[in-house]
């Protein structure tokens, strides 16, 4: 493994901060002043695009329906999704100023005085998308019962999660690509098995060390502890992990999730025979994969191993 440590790194920096600083220094990412919110270089985006195409090559044979949602979801749908039950700490709502002249004066005075001015804003009908598949389920539900073969979707969206961190692999705004399978339990489980295999083959072809392990979502609070334990005990979530800034705590770059009938019953999606649809998804953390490649092969993609470049840019 090719770990780049900076000889001149100030003492006391975590490996995450060191890597982040290196990415800034080499112009791969650009600092915004907020942890987890970064500009991306053209070279970084080239890697994201190449990986995106690689995923498409692996998934093409399944003929998924592609839908492009903006990075926001309608607030009533978000409220019904139950996201606030499980991840209230991660959600981001969009607020706007809706007042009149007097309120505007107050707002400007507060801004001028360096006070909190955001109280002058009100919640809009839009919530930032927390995971690419959230807008999908209500959209599918509107189409009525599934055909016998079920459905398969291909999604990609910028997502927001409020978890500021110095770890470049934990951004607050990042892209998630997903294939989402909706159908009978058998169809959905077979899909997840296929992608568990494919995902490992695909990532191994990029010359990065990886392992697959059982995982849980970061559910909130004591109730969340129980949900997380249940999720692990029943093997509902697996992650493909690649060491990026830590060998002990490798980064989840792909995840393979079986939701059972959670979304099917929440959104009322029936299968062809009228039973509740099951769902599963494979998610690709686009920035995380790019960061894993920059970490293991160096900050200059032109100098990456030829075999890896062949896979990304055939």
């Amino acid at each position, binding site marked *: 493994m090719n770990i780049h440590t900076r000889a001149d790194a100030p003492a006391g920096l975590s490996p995450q901060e060191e890597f982040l600083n290196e990415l800034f220094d080499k112009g791969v990412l650009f600092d915004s002043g907020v942890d987890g919110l970064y500009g991306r270089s053209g070279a970084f985006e080239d890697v994201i695009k190449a990986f995106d195409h690689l995923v498409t090559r692996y998934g093409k044979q399944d003929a998924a329906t592609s839908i492009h949602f903006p990075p926001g979801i309608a607030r009533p749908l978000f409220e019904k999704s*139950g996201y606030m*039950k499980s991840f209230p700490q991660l959600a981001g709502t969009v607020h706007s100023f809706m007042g009149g002249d007097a309120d505007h004066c107050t707002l400007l005075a507060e801004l001028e005085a360096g006070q909190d001015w955001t109280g002058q804003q009100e919640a809009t009908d839009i919530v930032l998308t927390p995971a690419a598949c959230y807008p999908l389920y209500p959209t599918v539900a509107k189409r009525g019962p599934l055909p016998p073969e079920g459905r398969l979707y291909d999604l990609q969206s910028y997502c927001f999660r409020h978890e500021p961190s110095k770890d470049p692999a934990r951004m607050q705004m990042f892209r998630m690509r997903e294939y989402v399978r909706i159908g009978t339990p058998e169809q959905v489980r077979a899909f997840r098995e296929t992608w568990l295999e494919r995902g490992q083959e695909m990532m191994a072809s990029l010359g990065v060390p990886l392992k697959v392990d059982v995982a849980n979502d970061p559910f909130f609070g*004591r*109730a969340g*502890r*129980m*949900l997380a*334990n*249940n*999720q692990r*005990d*029943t093997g509902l979530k697996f992650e493909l992990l690649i060491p990026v800034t830590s060998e002990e705590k490798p980064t989840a770059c792909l995840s393979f999730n079986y939701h059972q009938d*959670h979304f099917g019953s929440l959104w009322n999606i029936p299968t062809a025979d009228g039973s509740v649809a099951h769902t599963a998804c494979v998610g690709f953390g686009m920035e995380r994969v790019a960061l894993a490649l920059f970490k293991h092969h160096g900050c200059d993609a032109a100098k990456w191993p030829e075999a890896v470049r062949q896979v990304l840019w055939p």
Partner: protein
Amino acid sequence: MTDRIRAILDQAAKLPVSANTLADDADLHEAGLTSFASVQLMLALEDAFDIEFPERMLNRRTFATIRSIETAVTELTRAAA
């Protein structure tokens, strides 16, 4: 105590069948106890028996059967007494 647990199950666990039809050692997950409903059940039990489940008990095994719930609640109420 199992009667009280059955009453709480009927109230909080949203099972497709009445808890009265379930034996003490019937698998509640197989009877339709979902992950989210088991959280509601856990909170309802805490309220009813004035206990707090410690982290080591926040798992499927604790809420697997009426008997396993009884064992956990008995242990916690005893510890509180």
